């Protein structure tokens, strides 16, 4: 009985929770992936409010290595934003609204954001042509819609 209880107590402490890790890239599916970690670690991490990980000090997002779109070369900020937010943007375009979509519209100096959103939504398949579509192609496809 005692043993079982001790084991139960310890197991409860070591049940898994998660911490963040990043899977970067220039295409779809680049996002933070969580690692499994013990509740114990998580309790300490959160109560002591420490953040783990190596120091980053970058005004760039780490996506500046991605290919540049052919038709819209001048706007680095837009390229980088799309590369860093591929999945969120795809979701917003499919829904016809959302913060990532509004931000892109601002970056592209679009005056009528509602019309822009509807146009992109109606042409989702033309923008996200395949699962391997790159951020540069997404921008090119959006700009091609005119």
């Amino acid at each position, binding site marked *: 009985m005692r043993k079982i209880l001790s084991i139960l107590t310890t197991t409860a402490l070591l049940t898994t929770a998660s911490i963040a890790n990043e899977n970067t890239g220039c295409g779809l599916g680049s996002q933070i992936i969580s690692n499994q*970690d013990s509740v114990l670690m998580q309790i300490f991490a959160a109560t002591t*409010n420490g953040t783990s990980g190596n120091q980053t000090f970058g005004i760039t997002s780490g996506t500046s290595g991605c290919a540049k779109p052919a038709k819209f070369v001048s706007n680095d900020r837009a390229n980088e934003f799309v590369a860093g937010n591929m999945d969120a943007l795809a979701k917003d375009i499919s829904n016809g609204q959302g913060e990532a979509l509004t931000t892109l519209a601002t970056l592209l100096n679009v005056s009528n954001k509602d019309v822009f959103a509807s146009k992109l939504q109606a042409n989702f398949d033309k923008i996200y042509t395949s699962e391997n579509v790159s951020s540069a192609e997404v921008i090119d496809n959006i700009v091609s819609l005119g």
Partner: protein
Amino acid sequence: MIIAVKKAVQLFFGLLLFQTSLFSSSSVSENIIDKLSQNKQWHRLLHFKNGKSEIDDKKFFFAKNGKTDPKAELKASIKELILDKSDDENSTLCHYPSRSTWILEQIPILKKEIKIPKCKALKKELKDLGAKYVTLILASAHINSPASAFGHTFLRIDNNPNTPLLSYAVNYAAQTREDNGFIYAYQGLFGGYKGRYSIEPYYKKLKEYSDLEQRDIWEYTLNLNQEQIDRMVLHIFEIRHFYADYFFLNENCSYNLLWLIEIATQKSNLVNQFKFKAIPIDTLRTVINNGLVKKSIYRSSKRKEILAISEPIKNNKKALDFAQSSDYNFSKIENMTKEEKIASLELATSLLKIKYSNNKISKKKYLPKFLKILGTRSKLGKVAKREIPTPSSPKDGHLSSKASIAYITDKAVKAKAKIAYHDIYDNDNGFISGAYISFFDTTIEYKNSDIFLEEIDFLDIKSYAIQDSIFKPISWQVALGAKRIFNNELNSYLTAGAGVTLGKDNFYGFATITPTVYYRETTKSSISGNIGIFYNPSKYLKFGISSSNEWFENSKEIKKIEPFITYSFDKKSAINIRYEYKDIDKIKENDTTISWFWYF
């Protein structure tokens, strides 16, 4: 031979230093240096507090005793500025832009004596950042993790307030890859890690806190003008090169942001208000109380967004099954209304993303499914944006430390105090409901003219995470401490268990099973079944009733029933009345306790 050369070189540089010190003292009088070295802003720039700088990186100081002597450091910094004729990024001015700018502002005549480098990289970074606004961000509790209730704070530097996704986050954190909780806690408590400031796109932080950890985000735009913002940014660009030992309790993430805000304003007194602990939510309150916040914006967690999306189908089993399936058979939702279809598809996308984030599905399997659902969704047009109600603000919750005095009907008096934070008897306004955590909760009892330690809880966490139609979190609890049990003797104990919670935010019930190990000379163990209901109708009132049955290995048994009511007057005080019925091996006891809670 080599030693002789070294000596000669040292002598040469010694002479050089001697000369420049003469040089600098000719243009900058000892008087000015003396006066400036006592300037509060100079102390802020050095993170100087209680007789020394909190920066532990030796490279931060030019003077050997710079950590403890602001005057020596000022002198050495001026000397270094004059001496350094380099024109690259590592020149004194480009590398230490914050103190250099301040010194040159205070002693303008120096500008003629030093070579001003171009600092091309620094200028480009400043331009890309384009700082026009600074926002203090609070990531509140992570669902099912009461420990995160203390929150995490960081700053956001904005160029355009309408596109926060393009802003940058400035974060102070301990640098570690440790995954052993005990080592992590020990090192963290005693300054074993190096703390550094970092900067990265805000959308990355959102992915981490809002998407992955399901935390609500509160954004507080600071009341700073351009000059103050520039000063803060320059300091960030200097301090980023150096580390300070990270102490989880006080010199932590949120405390270190206060330095940045103080340096910006040049006058507020924020840092000194925190001595041995700095809880993020308290640092936020201090910033607000100093009139430094212009407005606040609430950004809901992904979890709340998902619940809002699924509102039209929350009772539609077919739709929920579709969204939670792995093959997404579209024929199953074909005959539904457009609204239901949209809800099903959007919910499906969100859940799929969570699955992918949690590593439950490979990228290869995720991508085609993701695009297929989005493509189908895109054919259905728009729906009105779903409003998510703003919950009570974390700043409006009771203060985080608590002391209480209680009178018990069997003529005992209890005094209780704890460092932090929120327990079952406290009103949940401003807190995540069901998330309870107490730190170093000590109870002293006075009874029959005797005074003794009744209980000490080092850590007591209860996570009553409410299950809903989409998310089914497991409730859990952990407690470690010492309490009086078995012939009223003090036993150390460890409890850890799990269960289920159902209901809604202000009215819910739980059931948990908790095994416990006690130790005093020998170990004893027990297993306990617990149930309870909490009702929190307003920021003034909270009711609760709980019952437990604890079975010991020697077949002894303790039964308990405890109803309570708490009336909170404000953030600082509350009154609590509790009745307790105990049955210890058929010996029945009952008493009523009246407590006064004082939060501070």
